[in-house]
């Protein structure tokens, strides 16, 4: 056990040195590190609980996506019915989770079934087609047909909705001008937004919570806005709070939607000085908007955002240039945010905040300082205790512990891992437990000495017997850490990471470094007695 070949020695020292050096970038300011080559830039990322920031978990409204998909199917069926004269398109209805339609009498059932089946598309998977189809068509007999959207098709649509949402959220959050926001998919229908360094996440939440579905529609003047009597082609919508929640009767038909916007900028009205948002349509939107305004001079049209009427100005003259402005008693910030939302585009489905964790920068700084203090105090006590207990060998153990901690930081950097407050606790705990491997070895050596072995024999036997135990005892804790990593989120996962890495470095140093140090000491001193 005490003989370590030259090559092994070099390998041990090189590995240790390399891992320790990986921690170096953390001790330089970020600006300095940026000028280094890419491979040398890996460093530890501070968790949101330490640097301050917001962690917001959003969930795509799956029910809304399902409803939209089902409504889409109804429209598709209607189109087929109309094109093939199979009956009245209006009799295609949604009943629960299915779309139902009964053909007119005497319709060609063969043709109907063929045409309806064409609605169903094969769904693609990771490995080409999966055999699943998008729509189930059931011929219930007597000219009755039932259509359902298949579960894989729903899942596919929700996946797409999450992907689109991520892109749109990215555009919105980037406009906030914060450093390194992170936006990731989580699970099937969730998006995790992490933005460091925000004092008040209210504005962020405001930007995330809006679907931002913008439509330009005509105001229906044929009836008074009365919740009791709404014409079938119109709906009752209310104005924003700034507009006193005034009710409007708005036509369901959309003249132009937000998809046709190419740009939106905050600005000020030239006459009133009021904050506004100016926008520009693409050619398609411009043409439709020009046509609608030409036909409706003197009538009001409504600008509707997420089913809320922002304003309903009267068309004074046709707007032909493809650009316009939205005013709605905005504050400057509201105008700014609306412009951001319009530029970023609408979310495919509403998002709900299901978890929020925000830590202010002050608390984060406090945690770092107190965590450091605890780490220094803990390390100092353990180091002193080990020295008092084992003397010279205690010093060896302390060297191993110091290198252990350096290696933990090195590996964390190498992995670009996140250090959280519980993570710091994990490191402090590792200091306490890392010496255990040395304790096991030293106690075993003491026993072997008592059993009458010579110094060198005792040291050799102590190592070889203790190492198996070290392995066994650490694996159990490692299993616990692995489970914790798997189930934990955020800060707790940070604890699992440092605990797990700590165990690996502990075992590594016990098997290599401590042995190397003691072996070298034995070779140089040729001791007669073991000083422990």
């Amino acid at each position, binding site marked *: 056990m005490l003989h370590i070949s030259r090559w092994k020695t070099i390998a041990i020292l090189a590995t240790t040195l390399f891992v320790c050096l990986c921690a170096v970038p953390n001790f330089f300011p970020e600006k300095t590190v940026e000028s280094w080559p890419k491979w040398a830039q890996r460093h530890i990322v501070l968790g949101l609980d330490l640097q301050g920031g917001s962690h917001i978990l959003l969930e795509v409204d799956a029910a809304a996506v399902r409803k939209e998909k089902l409504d889409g199917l109804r429209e598709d069926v209607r189109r087929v019915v109309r094109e093939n004269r199979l009956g009245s398109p209006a009799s295609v209805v949604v009943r629960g989770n299915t779309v139902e339609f009964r053909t007119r009498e005497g319709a060609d059932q063969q043709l109907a079934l063929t045409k309806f089946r064409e609605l169903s598309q094969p769904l693609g998977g990771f490995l080409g087609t999966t055999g699943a189809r998008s729509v189930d068509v059931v011929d219930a007999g007597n000219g009755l047909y039932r259509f359902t959207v298949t579960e894989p098709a729903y899942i596919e649509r929700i996946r797409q909705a999450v992907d689109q949402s991520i892109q749109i959220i990215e555009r919105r959050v980037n406009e906030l001008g914060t450093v390194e926001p992170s936006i990731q998919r989580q699970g099937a229908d969730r998006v995790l937004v992490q933005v460091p360094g925000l004092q008040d996440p209210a504005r962020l939440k405001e930007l995330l919570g809006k679907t931002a579905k913008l439509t330009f529609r005509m105001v229906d003047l044929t009836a008074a806005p009365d919740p009791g009597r709404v014409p079938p082609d119109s709906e009752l919508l209310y104005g924003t709070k700034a507009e006193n929640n005034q009710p409007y009767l708005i036509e369901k038909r959309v003249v132009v939607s937000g998809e046709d916007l190419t740009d939106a900028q905050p600005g000020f009205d030239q006459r009133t000085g009021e904050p506004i948002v100016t926008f520009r349509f693409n050619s398609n939107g411009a043409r439709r908007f020009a046509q609608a305004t030409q036909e409706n001079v003197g009538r009001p049209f409504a600008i509707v955002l997420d089913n809320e009427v922002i304003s309903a100005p009267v068309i004074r003259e046709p707007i032909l240039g493809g650009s316009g402005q939205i005013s709605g008693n905005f504050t400057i910030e509201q105008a700014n945010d609306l412009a951001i939302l319009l530029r970023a585009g609408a979310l495919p489905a509403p998002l709900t*905040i299901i978890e929020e964790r925000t830590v202010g920068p002050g608390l984060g700084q406090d945690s770092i300082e107190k965590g450091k203090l605890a780490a220094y105090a803990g390390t100092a006590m353990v180091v002193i205790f080990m020295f008092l207990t084992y003397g010279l060998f205690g010093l060896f153990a302390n060297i191993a512990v110091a290198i252990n901690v350096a290696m933990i930081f090195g590996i964390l950097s190498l992995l670009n891992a996140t250090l959280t407050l519980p993570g710091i606790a994990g490191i402090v705990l590792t200091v306490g437990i890392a010496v255990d491997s040395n304790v096991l070895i030293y106690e075993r050596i003491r026993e072997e000495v008592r059993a009458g072995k010579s110094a060198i024999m005792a040291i050799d036997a102590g190592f070889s017997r203790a190492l198996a135990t070290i392995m066994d005892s650490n694996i159990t804790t490692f*299993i616990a850490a692995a489970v914790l990593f798997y189930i934990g989120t955020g800060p707790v996962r940070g604890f699992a990471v440092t*605990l797990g890495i700590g165990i690996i470095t502990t075992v590594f140093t016990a098997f290599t470094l401590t042995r190397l140090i003691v072996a070298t000491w034995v070779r140089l001193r040729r001791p007669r007695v073991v000083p422990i």
Partner: protein
Amino acid sequence: MRLLRIVPDDTKFDFMRFRRVSFPISALLSIAAILLFFTHGLNFGIDFVGGTLVEIQSKSGPADLGRMRTTLGGLNLGDVQLQQFGAPTDVLIRIPQQPGGEGAQQEAIAKVRAALGSDVDYRRVEVVGPRVSTELLAYGMIGLMSAILGILVYLWFRFEWQFALGAMIANVHDLVLTIGFMSLTQIDFDLTSIAALLTILGYSLNDTVVIYDRIREMLRRYKKMPMADLLNISVNSTLSRSIITHVTVTLALLALFFFGPRAIHSFTSTMLFGVVLVGTYTSIFIAAPILIYLGVGTTRIEEERAAGKSQAGKPVPASR
């Protein structure tokens, strides 16, 4: 230099005799812990029951808890709890989960912000909706179970099944007592508590495994020795290590407890209880003697019985 010897060389405590005391005590304590759990329950944090946690710092001197209580009480948010948190300027506010789904939680925090005005700094705001809290609780429980199972399987591979079972009984006992402690002190039970429980499990086993390793070694070396003696020798010879390692872990935990940030207090106090108080006791007084009942080295048990009462009370024979 004279070195510190916490445990003298060659101790010969008859730990196995204590099993007649330690087993009933542990059984009683476990039952008490379970009773506590069912009567007092755990003080579930927002991670598991949903709701809102706000840590604020008053900008103008010590926080006026009474006034804040009145202000927030008038918001109709249910049982809002306020608690001084560390410094006199710092207050921790707990708002129970609001009825009305995910959106209602966000409205509640918006109301609180409006009510408290600009005199306070928001140091921490955590809002956990009903769906996430249900999931976190499920994950936590599944995590604990799978950790126990995973460790059981590992021990089963590495040792005989009696050892695996013995270690498991011992460490479930640790978890039960720790949960009893958490119920008694009404410490916040949140995700970090699950982390604490899993770590206690890991460390406690670490200790048990060290003793079991030694028992196994002894079993191979001394084929004829009565089981109780063998266990005594094993525990005694690893005693110094057990104590020293616990001292170092305790030192680290104490540092975290006294100097670490307030946010991990419940975490460290749980660990101090679980690892230091319970863990050490368990590996020595439960994990080792339980092997006798699980029938490790059955032939020896018969020998022990044959040797009968004459063994009891005598010092452990020196085997070397």
